[in-house]
């Protein structure tokens, strides 16, 4: 994938300008983790071998909604099968949110009484191999007393709809209400009322490595060891201990190499509880590896949002008010810790985007259906919110007859308004949003589009350009999570920095690196503070027994949070190193000592880090009087504010649409983004390009439709399409840098941003291309069938109008 950089202009790259050749912050340092990963030596869950290990297969519900009238297990396999009744005392997943009226649900590891979605685990089967475990599963007969499926979120709220949870009296999980400003006044003042319904379909996360759990009892340490392909091992230890009833000191959770998470490994999984509970009941290690079918059916789904938006605008397209009705199909249960309420809450909170909108009404409903529970997926609700507001803005532009980019500029928060508190109380910390829009539009070539009729290609192919802008709240801290009422407040991150006697550095962190490059970028932060070669820094993570308690990697937080902690720990380590070095070199004042390229230097004297490490660890007699031996510091970092560091970007895309076949080609794709101080430009570009690839999946390919019986219609990769190398064009990345005033080094997170804007930008481009035909596309994925249907509907509409 080609990326181009534009760092040589007035925008600058901030305080780290010209750092690209360095090994510290800003440097294009090759990744420490790549040697093992690209040579196939990583250790993922399926690579772990253990004597006597047995494989687990889950028997999963084939029906959407039913009472379990009975489970018939032949006697000869009874010993190898576990159902809910064998797991007495094991607590279900029960997530609660602070939203008023929120209804919580018990999500058991193995279904109890009822099943509520196709793919819900009902029984667990143990055998020497997975194939044999599946043989056992096939011999179990479950008597399902079927109930009506609840499939469509809007229909689920209608009177007489079947209820997913018997004691709820309906399917509304909760409704969030926002009322800001005077809607009636805005309506009266508006020149246009622009209305649209915009929808994202349900999809899966599909990391390269599926989920997986391996559990066994370590009798020597008297602990249960659970390996899980998770993004947050420490937090999983806490909740898992609670669910299976074990003290935390006797539980160790390890995330080995994790082949992508994207949020779907950021929930407590029923399979984690089941395997941990099983390991407590058997005398051998047990393992479960999720296959693709299980992933598409049983792993948390994402994205199914509906937005009914009304914009009240003046004749220039200036938005006077937005009135939003948001619905989220959260599936059957709340995932822990996020709950079913998170998506709708975030969507309502961020819907106004990077725009200066002061009158805003939102009704955001979270609705239960008999489908797989919804959980976080890269971008979380922001991909939906961006789709809603950015499609609305293009519709506003069409209504007032202006260029969509100009209408965006008309409404965007301006740099001189920073810091800017939005109508929903988000605090944008820094940045120049209009500049990102201008750069993206300039790069994609708006002028060429003005002449797009001349570009009309063979076979009726039409060209369109679309843009979408967004802000990305990252590394939000205590204040934000408290406001959301979550059971765990993800407000900090720790790091231990330890110098070894030979002068190397070990960093132990509570995050989990699964593709973010953190084994390198955290080492670059250490280099920034200590002048140590990142190649000589070992970054250890992903193990609850290894580092101080940490929250894990999600919500675009690790670089800011763990980076801040590493910086702080190394800063304190440096103070001690300087004292030791000064003493070793017989320099009276430690402030005259500098750390440079692995040595402590004062004038023409120097000592290597090895000598400092040896003095601290092996030779207390060489230390200054009164200084404790050892070279180890643990620091905990919290950003200056809890409201987050806001990255932002504009995506611009040029598409070719074939109205007859319904096919779409992406001709060019530009991302003009700003994530504050860039720690490693290559890692940042990788994150952006990967995110855009997933966003292209949401926009054009990925979908799990359900039939009226609640049966998912995409349960293998034959039916579930993912973008591949040939579907992702070269992504051109333009960096600008507005450092966060609230974080160490001015870093902002950027892990999710790439996946936020593509559905909106691509949909806007397709709609521009098809506007002359009168066709509209407002639902993802924008498949050939949907495009052909829209074109057909437009033709039929025109015929009707003519007759």
């Amino acid at each position, binding site marked *: 994938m080609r990326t181009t950089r534009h760092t040589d202009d007035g925008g600058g790259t901030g305080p780290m300008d010209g750092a690209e050749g360095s090994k510290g912050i800003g440097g294009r340092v090759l990744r420490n983790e790549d040697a093992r990963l690209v040579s196939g030596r990583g250790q993922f869950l399926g690579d772990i071998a253990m004597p006597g290990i047995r494989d687990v297969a889950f028997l999963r519900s084939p029906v959407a909604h039913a009472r379990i009238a009975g489970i018939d297990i032949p006697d000869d396999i009874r010993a190898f099968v576990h159902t809910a009744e064998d797991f007495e005392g094991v607590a279900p997943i029960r997530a609660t949110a602070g939203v008023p009226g929120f209804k919580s649900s018990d999500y058991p590891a193995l279904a109890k009484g009822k099943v509520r979605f196709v793919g819900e685990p009902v029984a667990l089967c143990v055998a020497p191999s997975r194939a044999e475990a599946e043989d056992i599963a096939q011999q179990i007969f479950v008597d399902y007393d079927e109930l009506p499926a609840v499939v469509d979120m809007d229909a689920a709220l209608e009177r007489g709809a079947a209820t997913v949870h018997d004691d709820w009296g309906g399917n509304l999980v909760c409704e969030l209400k926002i009322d800001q400003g005077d809607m009636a006044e805005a309506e009266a003042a508006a020149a246009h009322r622009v209305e649209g319904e915009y929808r994202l379909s349900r999809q899966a996360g599909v990391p390269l490595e599926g989920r997986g759990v391996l559990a066994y009892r370590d009798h020597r340490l008297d602990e249960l060891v659970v390996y899980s392909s998770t993004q947050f091992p420490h937090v999983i230890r806490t909740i898992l201990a609670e669910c299976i009833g074990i003290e935390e000191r006797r539980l160790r959770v390890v995330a080995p190499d994790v082949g992508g998470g994207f949020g779907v490994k950021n929930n407590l999984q029923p399979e984690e509880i089941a395997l941990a509970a099983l390991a407590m009941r058997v005398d051998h290690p047990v393992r479960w590896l999720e296959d*693709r079918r*299980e992933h598409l059916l049983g792993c948390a789904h994402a994205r199914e949002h509906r937005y009914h938006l009304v914009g009240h605008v003046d004749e220039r397209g200036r938005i006077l008010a937005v009135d939003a009705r948001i619905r989220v199909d959260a599936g059957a249960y709340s995932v822990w810790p996020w709950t079913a309420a998170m998506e709708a809450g975030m969507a309502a909170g961020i819907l106004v985007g990077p725009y200066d909108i002061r009158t805003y009404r939102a009704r955001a409903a979270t609705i239960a259906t008999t489908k797989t529970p919804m959980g976080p997926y890269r971008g979380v609700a922001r991909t939906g919110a961006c789709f809603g507001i950015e499609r609305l803005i293009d519709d506003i532009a069409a209504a007032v007859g202006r260029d969509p980019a100009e209408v965006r500029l008309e409404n965007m928060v301006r740099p001189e308004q920073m810091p800017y508190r939005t109508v929903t109380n988000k605090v944008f910390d820094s940045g120049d949003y209009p500049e990102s829009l201008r750069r993206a539009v300039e790069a994609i070539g708006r002028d060429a589009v003005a002449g797009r009729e001349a570009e009309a290609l063979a076979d009726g192919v039409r060209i369109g350009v679309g843009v979408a802008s967004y802000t990305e709240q990252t590394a939000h801290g205590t204040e934000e999570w408290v406001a959301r009422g979550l059971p765990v407040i993800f407000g900090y991150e720790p790091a231990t920095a330890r110098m070894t006697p030979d002068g190397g550095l070990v960093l132990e962190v509570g995050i989990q690196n699964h593709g973010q490059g953190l084994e390198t970028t955290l080492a670059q932060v250490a280099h920034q503070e200590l002048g140590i070669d990142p190649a000589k820094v070992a970054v250890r993570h992903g193990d609850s027994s290894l580092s101080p308690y940490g929250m894990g990697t999600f919500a675009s937080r690790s670089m800011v949070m763990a980076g801040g902690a590493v910086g702080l720990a190394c800063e304190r380590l440096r103070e001690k190193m300087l004292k030791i070095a000064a003493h070793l070199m017989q320099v009276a004042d430690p402030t005259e000592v500098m750390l440079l390229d692995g040595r402590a230097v004062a004038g023409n004297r120097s000592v290597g880090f090895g000598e400092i490490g040896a003095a601290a660890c092996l030779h207390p007699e060489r230390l200054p009087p009164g200084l404790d031996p050892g070279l180890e510091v643990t620091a905990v970092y919290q950003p200056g504010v809890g409201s987050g560091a806001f990255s932002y970007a504009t995506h611009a895309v040029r598409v070719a649409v074939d109205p007859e076949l319904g096919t779409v080609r992406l001709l060019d794709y530009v991302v003009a983004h700003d994530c504050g101080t860039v720690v490693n430009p290559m890692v940042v570009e990788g994150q952006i390009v990967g995110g855009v690839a997933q966003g292209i999946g949401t926009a054009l390919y990925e979908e799990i439709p359900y039939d009226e019986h609640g049966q998912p219609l995409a349960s293998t990769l034959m039916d579930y399409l993912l973008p591949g*190398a040939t579907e992702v064009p070269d992504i051109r990345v333009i960096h600008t840098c507005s450092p966060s005033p609230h974080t160490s080094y001015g870093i902002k997170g950027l892990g999710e941003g790439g996946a936020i804007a593509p559905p909106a930008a691509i949909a806007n481009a397709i709609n521009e291309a098809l506007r002359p035909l009168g066709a509209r596309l407002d639902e993802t994925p924008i498949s*050939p069938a949907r495009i052909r249907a829209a074109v057909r509907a437009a033709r039929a509409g025109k015929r009707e109008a003519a007759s």
Partner: protein
Amino acid sequence: MKPASFDYYRARDLDVATAVLAEHEGAARILAGGQSLVPMLNLRLAPVAMLVDVGDIAELRQGARDGDGVRIGACVTHAAIEDGAVPDATRGLLGRVAAGIAYRAIRTRGTIGGSLALADPAAEWPVTMLALDATVRVHGPHGKRDIAMRDMVLGAYTTAVEEAEIVESIAVPALSAGARHGVFKVCRKTGEYAASIGVAVSDREAGRHALALGGLTGGPARLGRVERRLSEIEAWSAETGEAIREAAVADLAERDDEMSEDERGLHAATAVRTVKDMIAP
């Protein structure tokens, strides 16, 4: 997604393979490249007691000239055809079609005989061989017999090959020096099965004009009205395209009167673009 247990027999010659198939009376399946069968086994969709692996039978792995045309063994891979490792008498059509099948990883194992025997409605080889008037030779308990492609595919995943018969080879007639061909496929992404696929052949010297469409409900189809037009076309124009479309719509309506307007429009568009690819690539 692991298969239930099954027996496995690696056959060295066709007679023994046929005998094993006959012995299992429908509970045995033939394994060639395995690119469709193995995923189906993993999903446990149908019980299979015995797999008869024909991949080791040397005569199935060869392609050779056969008169003017070529005869391609059933176990020749898509990749071998793509790479020109077997002779070609179609002026590059076979190589071009092969290169468009799924992904290279699949092409290195998937076989032409397996594709024809499976008869997936969206697959490349059934529609291509139908356009080329190829002949499939099968080997069974009572010896060999030839099946013309027009008689080969009876419906989706259903062929004229009988239970204990094995596809042995495909005879592809030669195209003349001046013959042209066109291929057009509608699919959502590289490697995906086609929603619609067309293969056109125009061989004036031999007086043969063919247009076959795949991705239809059931098996691939020849479009007679379009084919009659092909003999008249000199150069491409918008009018030519409209004439082809009209003919294709009529052919499709005749074949399947329950076809939706969307499908008919899509397949007619494929017909037009296939012919255009042939006339004005």
